[in-house]
């Protein structure tokens, strides 16, 4: 009996500990700040997305505050780590809304977590700018229109796939093999590759997969080699996209045209591939290839500045995923500057006033029918040449 009572006591203690921790962390009451929430997968298996996003968003918030804030208002960025987990993303968004009382949310980083929190944003009527690829985030299948409160900055997989297919078509190639990693990123790209193939007259003669922690893809590539496609398209992120390249070059398949997804957008990948990336093509956004852009390109200045700032602050090469957070952050900052921190006004501003917004991943034009706002120009086809990017044309 006593034992059980003590057990109960401990339970109460646990609650109190939680309470204390929460109290201790309570920030001093700010004068007047604009609160922006962010959900990124900073750690866990999809940290390659969330980590650069968080760094970018924090860097921008710092810069803005150092320059005196937004019309004198301090910008408070509240970042929660979702770890790529739907439950955590759900809890964190509710906390941002009810507790932190932010006026707009950036993220989540993944299509899965974005789809998971999307109903919440609609229900609580808070503008959310997702940093994930899937077109489903801004396309309500029931109405055929975007969700009212949800926007997104990254190019959809559709655009990347179309860029690749157009290129293949221009080469007159149509027998292709696709490879994808069995994560959200890979599966969503694979889905679009399969869906759009008939439209571009592509024959997918091999459809191979591998796990995100696989150490070797020789078996999949050997099978592809046996089938003999004209080109291979690989959809993955992280170390596997490098391993694929190495295995491919070992198998003497370097002469088969090879496309990577837009997930390939980091110079580190070229470096890690140790020569095996030569001749590989990938559709990339402007921020990956700032130096390659012509002086006339509207994106050149923003991309160069971002690249240099990021390198100076974090001493590591830029990842294109950070650019999605950059785009979302500056859209929000523009909105806050123009109309303050009212949720409804921010939403309306995003939908009506983001026109010709020059971002890292393209020039955005949001509208009531388009909450992604990018055209296929958002991708440039890039080829790896002498260990660096170069425009494919």
């Amino acid at each position, binding site marked *: 009996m006593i034992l059980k009572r003590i057990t109960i006591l401990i339970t109460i203690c646990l609650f109190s500990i939680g309470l204390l921790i929460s109290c201790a962390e309570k920030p001093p009451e700010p004068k007047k700040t604009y609160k922006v929430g962010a959900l990124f997968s900073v750690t866990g298996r999809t940290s390659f997305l969330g980590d650069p996003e968080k760094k970018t968003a924090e860097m921008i918030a710092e810069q803005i505050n150092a320059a005196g804030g937004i019309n004198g208002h301090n910008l408070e960025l509240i970042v929660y780590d979702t770890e790529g987990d739907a439950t955590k993303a759900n809890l964190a968004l509710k906390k941002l809304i009810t507790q932190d009382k932010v006026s707009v949310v950036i993220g989540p980083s993944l299509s899965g977590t974005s789809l998971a929190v999307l109903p919440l944003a609609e229900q609580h009527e808070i503008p959310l700018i997702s940093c994930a690829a899937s077109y489903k985030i801004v396309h309500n299948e029931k109405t055929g229109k975007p969700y009212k409160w949800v926007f997104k900055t990254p190019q959809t997989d559709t655009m990347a796939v179309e860029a690749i297919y157009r290129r293949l078509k221009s080469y007159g190639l149509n027998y292709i093999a696709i490879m994808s990693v069995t994560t959200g990123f890979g599966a969503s790209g694979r889905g679009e590759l399969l869906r759009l193939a008939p439209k571009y007259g592509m024959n997918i003669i091999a459809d191979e997969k591998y796990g995100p922690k*696989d150490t*070797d893809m020789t*078996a999949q590539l*050997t*099978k592809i080699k046996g089938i003999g496609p004209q080109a291979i398209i690989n959809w993955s992120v992280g*170390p596997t996209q490098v391993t694929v390249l190495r295995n491919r070059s070992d198998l003497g398949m370097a*002469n088969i045209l090879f496309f990577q997804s837009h997930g390939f957008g980091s110079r580190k990948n070229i470096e890690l591939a140790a020569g095996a990336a030569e001749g590989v093509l990938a559709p990339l956004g402007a921020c990956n290839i700032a130096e390659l852009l012509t002086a006339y390109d509207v994106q050149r200045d923003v991309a160069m500045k971002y690249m240099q700032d990021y390198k100076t602050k974090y001493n590591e090469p830029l990842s294109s995923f950070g650019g999605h957070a950059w785009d979302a952050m500056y859209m929000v900052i523009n909105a806050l500057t123009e109309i303050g921190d009212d949720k409804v006004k921010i939403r309306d501003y995003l939908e009506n006033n983001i026109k010709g917004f020059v971002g890292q991943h393209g020039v955005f034009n949001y509208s009531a029918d388009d909450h992604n706002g990018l055209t296929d120009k958002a991708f440039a086809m890039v080829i790896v040449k002498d260990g660096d990017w170069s425009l494919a044309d």
Partner: protein
Amino acid sequence: METISFTSQLFQYLITGLTVGSVYAMVAVGFNIIYNVTEIINFAQGEFVMLGGLIMVFFHVGMALPLVLAFPATVILVTLVGILLDRLAISPIRQPSVLTLIIATIAASILIKGIAMFIWGKDPFDLPAFSGRNPITVMGAVIQPQYFWVIGFLIVVVIALSIFFDRTIIGKAMSACADNADAAKLVGINVKQMILLSFALSAAIGAVAGVTMTPISLMEYDRGAMLAVKGFGAAILGGLGSFPGAILGGLIMGAIESFGAGLVSSGYKDAFALIVLLAVLFFKPSGILGDIEISKIKRF
């Protein structure tokens, strides 16, 4: 368009499978060394492999030490981690039930992973191949020179271990602990020391696996867990406690994955290996080479 004949394809699957399987086998051997002395499965075994790879990158690439120096230095450092693991996480537990010990190793693996993330960050690292990256073609199948290093080191580890357990006094003492810890205590063997040694030894083998596989597949901080699962599968498939079983189990797992990916469905390749594992267990509950009588004596 260059293609490849079906037999060459099969041969390629086999080679790839055996190489991947060799890594699993080394992890499985590491599991067995500790299992034999303590009856626990050390789920931090995969972290030894990860540390082996990343520390080797630090010595060989970061500090530009030559291979012959960097390799042993890495193994020694990871062995120290193994010793620390035993001293800090395993031996302080006073009334150890097998499950408590396993949870302790899981906790330790999370801790090691966290520290590795803190030190190396989240990006993958590369290591130059020991003898270049120019592949050799055999029967139409392509073999990276590094494959030979992986398989070669597995053989070295096997021979070294069998000499150790059969020919040396310490090795025999360890085998005695494995057979009957109480009896071993009675004849004056320091069981605590043997447990420490088993952790050191399996950490060293983990390090070897990590060093040799990194040039093929890169290495990053969170690779350990999946390797531990695969290695555990290999150890169970072969029969816990049996070294030939571990090697057989590892190679079979690698081969099934490779053939499954190549011939059937790459999306389900991991499932094939596990289905085979389940099928074996349902027919032979102690694994391929496991001894059912011995497994009855074990508490767990």
